[in-house]
């Protein structure tokens, strides 16, 4: 098992910079998820580590050893591809055994390892089949099996769940987490789905346009996003943003959006005071906007008036699409709420969880 380090790694394709000065340290046995929108460079970052692309600048280390010029097969990694990439002319057994055969393991050892992996993944009965005789979920398991028989230092997974249907995806997510615990190996996982990232990762690296935005535990990313991009990317529905400025009135600080003005709790006011009268972006998550009747006790609530344009019942909660003046935003409220479509209502903002971003730099103000 091993640690992985990206040191100032840059990858250019002609004029396009796919990965820009990436610095990441992945600890041994960590489950790191690289997440970002399509085309943000996360898959390229993974392929650089796999050795499928050459690094333009910088260094990648696996366990203190620079691997820039090491062939993929000598990096002791295994990869699960988005498309699974199973060899169609080989049986499931041969697909899984292929890497071991090439490395000249003896037959008994190969058989033992393949059977063990098949056992873990529940595909013992499929070993004689060809990939085209398998369902999508079974193929995905075989692809994972092909990686685990090798017992590599690092597992690379490139959007392995994106071809599965929604139900199977949720199930496989939990299985991958279990597998990680069982194997005690370093996992690097690429996805564009922030739910996958939040649920599986020990740490998440958010990448946008080839640049690392923030790397932290899921909880920290969620609670304290470094910038506007991370704040908007993590969480669903996304955080609400309002163009605003900070106004001082006596000893109190207010967020003024033009339509409504709300008091900033004293504790935060101290932090934001130096930015008075500056243009900022005020952010608040949908779950921090409540129906006042059902708001959690002990929160610092401020009331805002708005009109409900659409409601969406999700069963365990209701999404309210609200409009206050120019501003559209979403609230995620208790399902017992009596709010109806078209109502003019007052909702309460939990200002203890408010976020303020510099409008110019888009960085969080803390």
């Amino acid at each position, binding site marked *: 098992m091993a640690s992985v380090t990206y040191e100032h790694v840059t990858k250019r394709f002609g004029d396009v910079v796919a990965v820009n000065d990436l610095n990441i340290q992945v600890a041994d046995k960590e489950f790191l998820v690289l997440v970002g929108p399509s085309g943000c460079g996360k898959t390229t970052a993974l392929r650089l580590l796999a050795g499928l692309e050459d690094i333009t600048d910088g260094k990648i280390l696996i366990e203190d050893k620079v691997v820039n010029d090491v062939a993929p*097969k000598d990096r002791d990694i295994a990869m699960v*591809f988005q*498309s699974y990439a*199973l060899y*169609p002319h080989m049986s499931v057994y041969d697909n899984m055994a*292929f890497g071991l055969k*090439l*490395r000249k393991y003896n037959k008994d050892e190969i058989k033992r390892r393949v059977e063990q992996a098949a056992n873990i993944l529940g595909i013992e009965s499929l070993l004689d089949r060809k990939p085209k005789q398998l369902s999508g979920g079974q*193929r995905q398991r075989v692809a994972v099996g092909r990686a685990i028989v090798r017992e590599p230092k690092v597992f690379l997974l490139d959007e392995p769940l994106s071809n599965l249907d929604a139900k199977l995806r949720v199930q496989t997510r939990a299985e991958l987490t279990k597998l990680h615990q069982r194997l005690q190996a370093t996992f690097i996982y690429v996805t564009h789905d922030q739910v996958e990232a939040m649920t599986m990762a020990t740490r998440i690296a958010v990448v946008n346009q080839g640049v690392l935005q923030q790397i932290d535990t899921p909880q920290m990313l969620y609670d304290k996003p470094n910038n506007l991009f991370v704040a908007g990317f993590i969480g669903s529905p996304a955080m609400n943003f309002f163009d605003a400025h900070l106004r001082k009135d006596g000893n109190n600080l207010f967020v003024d959006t033009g339509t409504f003005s709300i008091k900033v709790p004293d504790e935060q006011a101290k932090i934001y005071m130096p930015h008075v009268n500056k243009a900022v972006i005020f952010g608040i998550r949908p779950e921090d906007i409540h129906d006042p009747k059902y708001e959690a006790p002990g929160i610092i609530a401020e009331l805002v008036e708005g009109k409900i344009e659409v409601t969406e019942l999700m069963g365990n909660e209701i999404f309210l699409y609200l409009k206050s003046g120019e501003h559209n935003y979403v609230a995620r409220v208790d399902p017992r709420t009596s709010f109806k479509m078209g109502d003019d209502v007052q909702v309460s903002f939990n200002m203890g969880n408010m976020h303020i971003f510099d409008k110019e730099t888009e960085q969080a103000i803390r």
Partner: protein
Amino acid sequence: MDIDQDYTKNIQISKKTLLIDKLKKWARLTPSYFILGIWSLFTAFTILWVTASSFKSNRQLFKETWKIPTELHFENYVKAWTTVKMGTYFINSTIVVLSALVIVLFISAPVAYILSRVKFKGNNLILTLFIAGIGIPVQLLYIPLFVIMTDLGINNTMFGLGLLYVVVSIPFTVFILTGFFGSIPKELEEAGVIDGCSDFQVYWKIMFPLATPGLITAAIFNFIWLWNEYQIALVFINNPDLRTLPLGLYALSNAMQYTGDWVGLMAGVVIIMVPTILLYVILSEKMIAGITMGSVK
């Protein structure tokens, strides 16, 4: 009431448009089906008639030209095979064509693989040269080739003929195989690299087996044209013992002017036809079967 009328009217209109669409489709397809139908009938008829005639006696052939043979005269085949030496020609053809075929595929497949997969300067130029090679009539090259072959001392040998067959088949074979290799997903190569394949192993253990449908297609096309190839063999083979089947058949039909043995000629034609048909029957399904299905989703 109004609504009902509208409804029926709408249905009538949609039925009408459906009918028009169908007619249009027929109008478009009928000429091609007609031509293909006539062609198939003609081909099937010729094959059947030649085969039937090859089992008749000469007398029966002229008396009952369109009838099914009443007794089977296998001696026509024996005569064609031994007396007119079709047997020797058959063996010559088999040796030259099969060895040329194997060599063509083993040379063209790696070339096509590299051209379709590896990006390097001049890649397109090389592929274009191969494609241009398809367009050059081999007749233009007879004189220089003859000189070279004579200098090398391989003129009028089976080895020389085989070599020529290899050379003239490569451009076309590379061309179709490039398409096949290009259609195999790149992830399979990458998976192979990560699993520990060397470049050669990626080709030999993954790409080559996956290109099987392409290789079979190329094999069938090349077999058909080499098996029936007449001109090159005529120019470069003088020794009667080294003749291939098409040359033999020509000799047979020439001899016909003096012997009048039409049924023997028919037997010769059937002998030359059977391998092509057999090959097609055995391999055409493989040609169509896409074995890459199910590898990636």
